[in-house]
């Protein structure tokens, strides 16, 4: 073990740690480097505190400015010095040696050609990486599970014994039933017309025309709404093949905003057991856009904000707000 002359207290500690830690690390340089980090942190926070305090009172404005600049430069130079010191110390610390192989994988480190095929060190790095990834993924999944985003009634992760009994019945519905529900909803509102197409298999694609204001294309998955695109009344809804174009965004900013709001709405209205109620609520919400260009914002009273009319409709009260005014 390499050692420099140092105070006795550090020696004892160094001894104890040496039994546990690898041989190649220079422990004294390590502790000096930690002190160096602390010094760097304190000089950086000194810089920000100095900036926060601002200029001190002197007689002339020039005098104040000069003194401020001089002190600021001093602080920055202290930071620079500490950083250089830290770099020097970290160079002395050395790398933990890899000559303590871990059981069978250590047999990989017996390959003498270390430069060309650094298998063992790469293996260690990959292992550390995957551990960190697993840890972060666990954190992320616990955060995401707090907010349930499931819109269908599938019970994933339920015990294998129960799974055959809980059939996802709302996902497998006969197309005739879907047609009936949609046509019933279409007759509910006089100014909203719904046409149903099935261009790709059994998923329905609805073309919802709202008065002379907008046309919305709603892609369904059995009775669940998957996604939606809202375009202007005078925009083209077919692509070159003559089929419904379900991907192109609107060319008008107001309808791009309404598309975003509609996507938020279909995530908001969720009832896995009763999807037809969901579709009805969504259509009721969409119908409030009949007065998209006529209503002023309920909060600021203006019609326009950044060139856009009030595009947000509250999910409960259906009042119109600007996107920036919504409460």
């Amino acid at each position, binding site marked *: 073990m390499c050692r420099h002359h140092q105070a006795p207290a550090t020696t004892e500690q160094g001894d104890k740690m040496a039994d546990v830690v690898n041989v190649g690390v220079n422990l004294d340089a390590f502790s000096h480097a930690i002190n160096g980090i602390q010094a760097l942190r304190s000089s950086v926070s000194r810089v920000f505190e100095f900036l926060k305090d601002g200029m001190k009172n002197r007689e002339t404005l020039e005098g104040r400015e000069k003194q401020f600049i001089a002190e600021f430069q001093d602080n920055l130079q202290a930071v620079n010095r500490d950083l250089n010191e830290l770099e020097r110390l970290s160079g002395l610390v050395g790398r933990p040696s890899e000559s303590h192989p871990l059981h069978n994988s250590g047999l990989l480190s017996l390959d003498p050609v270390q430069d060309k095929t650094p298998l063992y060190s790469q293996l260690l790095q990959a292992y550390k990486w995957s551990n960190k990834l697993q840890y972060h993924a666990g954190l992320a999944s616990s955060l995401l599970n707090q907010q349930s985003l499931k819109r269908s009634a599938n019970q994933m992760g339920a015990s294998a014994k129960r799974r055959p009994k809980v059939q996802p019945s709302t996902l497998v519905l006969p197309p005739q039933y879907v047609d009936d529900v949609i046509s019933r909803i279409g007759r509910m509102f006089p100014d909203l017309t719904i046409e149903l197409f099935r261009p790709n298999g059994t998923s329905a694609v609805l073309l919802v025309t709202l008065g*002379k*204001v907008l046309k919305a294309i709603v892609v369904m998955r059995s009775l669940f709404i998957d996604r939606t695109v809202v375009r*202007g*009344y*005078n925009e083209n809804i077919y692509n070159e093949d003559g089929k419904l174009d379900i991907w192109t965004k609107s060319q*008008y*900013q*107001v*309808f791009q905003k309404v598309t975003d709001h509609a996507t938020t709405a279909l995530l908001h209205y969720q009832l896995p057991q009763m999807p037809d109620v969901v579709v009805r609520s969504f259509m009721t919400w969409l119908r409030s856009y009949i*007065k*998209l*260009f*006529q209503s*002023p914002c309920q909060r600021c009273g*203006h*019609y*326009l904000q*950044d*060139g*856009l*009319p009030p595009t947000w409709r509250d999910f409960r009260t259906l009042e119109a707000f600007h996107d920036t005014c919504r409460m």
Partner: protein
Amino acid sequence: MGVTCVCQVPVAEGKSVQQTVDILHKKLEQLGAVKHGSFCVDCETYHATGNVSGQPSKLLYVMHNSETPLSCLALFEGGPCLIADANFDVLMVKLKSHFQNAKSHKVECRGSRYRYCDFLIKVGTVTMSSSARGISVEVEYCPCVVPGDCWNLMKEFMQSFLGPSVPELPSVFAAKPEGLFAAADCVDTMTQYLELFNKLRKQQIAGSNVR
């Protein structure tokens, strides 16, 4: 094609036509509009010959708009109108015996085009035989097709850069049989331009001083 409103902006006191146009451009740029090329609307007048004497000959107006470069609009004032393709001009030349071109009455409106969010604003100088007669401003709100719906919205926008000289709802929309809730189209725009040109022409004939 959205709802358009064409109006005339009076020349500012003590300034020339070009200076007023520059003031408008600056106000638009302050709002955040971005310049998007230029535009040109022109109108030629044709007298219908071969009429029964004693009746004033009807005037046929043939108009072009750079927004629809492949089309040409022919209309009688207050009467029927026709949208044809650009070869219509050649046809008019062939119909010389029936329609005579009043070359001195050609009116042109040229200027720059600005885009702000979903609005298209065109500020132009109306010239007749190379003398500037006035300033026209056209505001188009592209997403909406029903004038009755978005008139308040357009008025609020026009107030933000035109100030006090905001026009009323153009009469061409109110005059339709379905009223304000019929869809607007390019014929309405050109009719508004025609009204503006005729107004400016009459101003000159009346002898009032328009700089």
